[in-house]
């Protein structure tokens, strides 16, 4: 898909982090993210998501390993890498007495960009913050503060954007408009790395998914192939007449009789060569079992996630 000579937006090799108290939060993480990707990092509380992001952004000092952002080393060329990165941290921290406008302008200056009021105006309008621009931050609601953090992160027009749980505490309407904006950003070539605990969000947004648990990246996969690979499919058959028990010929197969005998549910693996659906249908015919309706459903990313993290 991407030409081989293209420099990845982010390249992490052998990243480790042991905190001062001796706790190892990251154990040899390797990760490559291509330019223009939306990458979702999933994992339970304390898995190491924030630590990973903070290491890339310069907030946490890695204990070992290399990090490159668009080909620049994050230690020797920290000015280049940080210039390219925008970060929306998980915790909302604000200068309570600053105004929205000033704090966003400050961020742009801090990243060494010339003043550009028109750009900040568009930014605040897109984030529905324009009418609050002269308010002090302490006068904003929690969700508004979160959006100010996003505005600050975008103030210097970054190429790689880290969103550490950006939608926590943001209402439903704004959340979907936020995702629209994330997609728009991606259209302009920005690479996006996000964490979220709303798995359906990752399922909807991400191109690729990484699952981290106990400081280890246990999986990185293209979302579609992940769902296909790990996804179990269920074939649900609504029967015309209820059965009292499973016919003997079907016993021993991954099939269940549910809903007081009105429904047969057959679970199969989408990756298997022969998924057994055709045989099942033949069998129903020979047994003269008739059905009203038939449908399939695929397991969601959430189920896959719970299963993965549960195993580890």
């Amino acid at each position, binding site marked *: 898909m991407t030409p081989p000579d293209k420099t990845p937006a982010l390249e992490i090799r052998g990243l480790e982090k042991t905190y001062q108290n001796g706790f190892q939060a990251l154990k040899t993480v390797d990760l490559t993210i291509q330019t223009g990707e939306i990458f979702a990092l999933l994992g339970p509380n304390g898995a190491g998501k924030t630590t990973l992001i903070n290491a890339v*952004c310069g907030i946490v*000092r890695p204990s070992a390993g290399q990090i490159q952002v668009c080909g620049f080393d994050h230690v020797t060329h*920290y000015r280049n*890498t940080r210039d390219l*990165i925008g970060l929306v941290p998980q*915790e909302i*921290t*604000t200068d309570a007495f600053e105004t929205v406008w000033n704090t966003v302008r400050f961020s742009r200056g*801090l990243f060494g960009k*010339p003043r550009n009021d028109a750009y900040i105006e568009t930014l605040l309008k897109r984030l529905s913050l324009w009418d609050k621009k002269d308010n002090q931050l302490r006068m904003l609601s929690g969700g508004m503060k979160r959006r100010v953090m996003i505005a600050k992160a975008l103030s210097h027009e970054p190429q790689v954007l880290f969103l550490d749980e950006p939608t926590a505490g943001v209402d439903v309407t704004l959340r979907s408009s936020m995702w629209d904006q994330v997609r728009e950003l991606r259209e302009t070539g920005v690479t996006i790395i996000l964490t979220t605990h709303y798995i359906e969000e990752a399922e909807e947004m991400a191109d690729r998914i990484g699952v981290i648990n106990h400081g280890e990246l246990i999986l990185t996969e293209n979302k579609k192939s992940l769902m296909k690979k790990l996804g179990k499919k269920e074939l649900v058959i609504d029967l015309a007449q209820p059965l009292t028990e499973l016919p003997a010929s079907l016993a021993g197969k991954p099939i269940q009789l549910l809903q007081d005998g009105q429904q047969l549910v057959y679970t199969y693996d989408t990756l298997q060569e022969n998924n057994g659906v055709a045989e099942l249908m033949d069998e129903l015919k020979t047994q003269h079992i008739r059905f009203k309706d038939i449908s399939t459903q695929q397991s969601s990313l959430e189920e896959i996630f719970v299963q993965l993290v549960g195993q580890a």
Partner: protein
Amino acid sequence: MNLRAVAAIYNFEMARTFRTIGQSIASPVISTVLYFVVFGSAIGSRINNIEGISYGAFIVPGLIMLTVLSQSVSNASFGIYFPRFTGTIYELLSAPISFVEVLMGYVGAAASKSLIIGLIILATSSFFVPLEVRHPFWMLTFLVLTCLSFSLLGFIIGIWADGFEKLQLIPLLIITPLAFLGGSFYSIRMLPGIWRQISLANPVVYLISGFRWSFYEQADVSLGISLAMILIFLMLGLVVVYWIFRTGYRLRN
């Protein structure tokens, strides 16, 4: 060098000062007026001139130093401690800036504020006593160097402190006693032999002496030594800051 970042930090800090302009300026001015009423008029009227200078005029340089020292330390320490406390430091750490730029922004702003306050006290004093500044250049040099080196000290304290108590501790336990005993209200020549020797170990003596010399050409120690001391102090501060920079002490975990 990311000068825009330095300017952003500097302006941000100055804006904070001007937002609370009332408190920032009122409290040093009020305490100066009080000192004048108590020491200059009430007690000072009973004190002979010190080496040809009225007592009221004699204490002006010391008073300015007293305020400038404590203001520099508290402004700079608060300036860098506060983002650490609230967590907004994340932005400084993730920005394409080096520690030098952070330092320039914060120390520059804290020193500017103390300089302004020092000059305001000077102006206030002129309402109470006839003032003359014989060497305005040296007066400003001493004032600026003091503001800078003590803001640097404040910056170091702000990075070292891990609570508001510690933030107050050094100014309270060290700076204020040293400033009081450094000859703000007397000439150390007035002290008996042994106390005079002990006083010479107090760095603030040299600052006040040099500063007073720039007003009245009258000093406890020679100008050269005063200047050397403040430069040494500044260098020490820079060395500590360099070490903090190398190790990421208390900034990056």
